[in-house]
């Protein structure tokens, strides 16, 4: 029936047509994460030329663990940014979750799985309270989360206590950021990711053809999944190389444990945003809250849930934070929230709401981490990292504002 339709779905035509369509969208301001990906390539090239260590497996593994905490936080923040809101308290919520994790294990002898649940539940609770104040009382999220940002720093001092630092010694928690998986697990992970990707794509194609709709050319799916396979195999091979400083004493090779954790969060979050009613409502509320309300969407409930998701991600980020530092101090998480917001925005998530994906936050997280990592390797003064990161954020926000104006002018 779609052949006789005067109204098309935009999926007709060849690979070339799809490509042309993409170019039109990019020029119209829907750039997505394209600038961030280009930036990633350019930055990586510059740093690789400036210092060969940049390309060593040890540095790449470092980069992954450096970015994991910020990326997890940024993925949670993406939900909030999609509503056009902000969560300044995400970093200190992560810190406080880490604090509860450490205290419950160290001071009260709680088993690590329970401590992990406590940390995550704390994050969820914070999100619920913030969401309630934003959605039901009507306080701007900027103010609510700024208040939480200040209050939680004080609370963290109380939780951590006099020592100012609590060590983490549960091996499974430490392993997340510091230990690699067995070599074969890296390959299994890649195969699972590949199969899931192909399977979900094929299912949505079948669904479309079942209701008489034309799907995008199969060549696109093949090209995309082959790219995924090749890049993924490259990464796994690279990470499976020996990177220990002294292999004879301690061998260090394999994909870090944190990688599957971040991938699971990415896949679950992306599924929720793209394939469920709730996800659709998040985009709708971010695009036009009044229209959503009139369409019968419970806007308040969406807001509260989104803040809970963001803070739950923050709770998980707190566990990563504790794992990486092998300890939790009074200042934990204080500085990472701005990096996380920068990561999301640099990756292509709009500050104005309604536009962005979780994968954008991951790509943006890499950009922020590479700047930090690369400038450090070049040996520039450490203050410059922050200056460059700030400049990149401003650049991304400028691009965001301009593309918004462009797409408005197009209407």
């Amino acid at each position, binding site marked *: *029936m*779609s052949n006789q*339709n*005067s*109204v*098309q*779905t*935009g*999926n007709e035509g060849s690979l070339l047509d799809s490509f042309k369509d993409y170019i039109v969208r990019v020029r*119209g301001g*829907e750039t997505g994460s394209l600038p961030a990906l280009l930036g990633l390539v350019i930055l990586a090239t510059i740093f690789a030329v400036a210092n060969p260590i940049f390309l060593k497996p040890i540095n790449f593994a470092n980069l992954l663990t450096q970015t994991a905490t910020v990326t997890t936080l940024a993925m949670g923040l993406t939900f909030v940014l999609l509503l056009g809101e902000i969560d300044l308290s995400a970093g200190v919520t992560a810190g406080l979750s880490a604090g509860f994790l450490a205290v419950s294990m160290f001071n009260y002898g709680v088993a690590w799985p329970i401590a992990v649940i406590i940390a995550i539940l704390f994050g969820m609770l914070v999100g619920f309270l913030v969401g309630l104040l934003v959605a039901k009382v009507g306080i701007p999220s900027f103010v609510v989360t700024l208040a939480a940002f200040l209050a939680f720093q004080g609370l963290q001092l109380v939780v951590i206590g006099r020592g100012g630092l609590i060590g983490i010694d549960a091996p499974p928690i430490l392993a997340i950021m510091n230990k690699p998986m067995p070599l074969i697990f890296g390959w299994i992970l890649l195969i699972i990711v590949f199969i899931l990707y192909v399977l979900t794509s094929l299912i*949505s194609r079948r*669904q*479309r*053809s*079942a*209701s*008489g*709709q034309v799907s995008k050319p199969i060549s696109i799916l093949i090209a995309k999944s082959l790219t995924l396979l090749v890049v993924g195999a490259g990464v796994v091979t690279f990470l499976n190389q020996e990177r220990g400083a002294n292999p004879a004493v301690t061998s260090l090779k394999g994909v870090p444990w944190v990688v599957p954790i971040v991938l699971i969060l990415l896949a679950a979050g992306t599924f929720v945003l793209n*394939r*469920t*009613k709730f996800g*659709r*409502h998040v*985009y*709708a509320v*971010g*695009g*036009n809250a*009044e*229209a*959503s309300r*009139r*369409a*019968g*969407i419970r806007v308040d409930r969406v807001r509260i849930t989104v803040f809970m998701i963001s803070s739950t991600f923050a709770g998980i980020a707190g566990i990563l934070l504790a794992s990486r530092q092998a300890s939790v101090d009074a200042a934990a998480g204080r500085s990472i929230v701005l990096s996380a917001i920068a990561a999301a925005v640099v990756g292509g998530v709009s500050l104005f709401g*309604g*536009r962005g994906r979780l994968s954008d936050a991951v790509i943006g997280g890499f950009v922020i981490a590479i700047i930090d990592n690369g400038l450090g390797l070049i040996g520039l003064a450490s203050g410059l990292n922050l200056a460059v990161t700030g400049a990149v954020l401003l650049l991304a926000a400028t691009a965001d504002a301009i593309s918004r104006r462009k*797409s*408005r002018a*197009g*209407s």
Partner: protein
Amino acid sequence: MSSKTPVIELREVKKSFGPVEVLKGVNFSVRAGEVTALVGDNGAGKSTLIKGLAGIQPYESGTILFEGNEVELTSPRQSSELGIDVVYQDLALCDNLDIVHNMFLGREQANNGVLDEGHMESKAASTLTSLSVRTVKSVRQKVARLSGGQRQTVAIARAVLWNNKVVILDEPTAALGVAQTEQVLQLVRRLADAGKAVIIISHNLQDVFTVADRIYVLYLGKMTAAVKKSETSQSDVVAYITGTKTQENIEA
């Protein structure tokens, strides 16, 4: 046509805001397959009458008959359950979503919690096709990319998608150019031809005379005229609107 039972019939509905009586006992009826225009100057009570039908601001007294049965309209939900849908002037579309998403906004179709995009897409496309919409090329376009007329089309198609019996259009042509006004008016005509009862509120008498079958005139909270288009003229309607003339026997 007039022999058929009206889809909606209002008898002596009243509404006041504090001491201000906005609707002073209004009779109004709408028939399937017809475009009914509701005209009147600012403050005549058009919006109040419509908001009562939408269930947003219930009437204080009077009778509402829906397909001959007496009903209550006290919430937007009741109205939409009866099949009454309002396309507001600001259209209430989400710019960042595509046409399909907007047409199913708040009423997304899902299988086991997973959105059924294929089903929604084909239903949206066939609705637009059934309305002979040719101005919209792809249902997967973002609404931000559409022209004013196309947006109006999407908003109207959304009201049609759910098999509503009554579609109320609030100033559908106010923000449009000549060509797009023409397209939207044709669409309004096709809605009525498809058997819907269409109410159109407009300040533009030329549009009203192009598309309407029947014209109701509100003047300071009273219905001062209810005429068939074929039995009146623009200058008469202007006189009704400005209050210089009143129809003798109003058969609403």
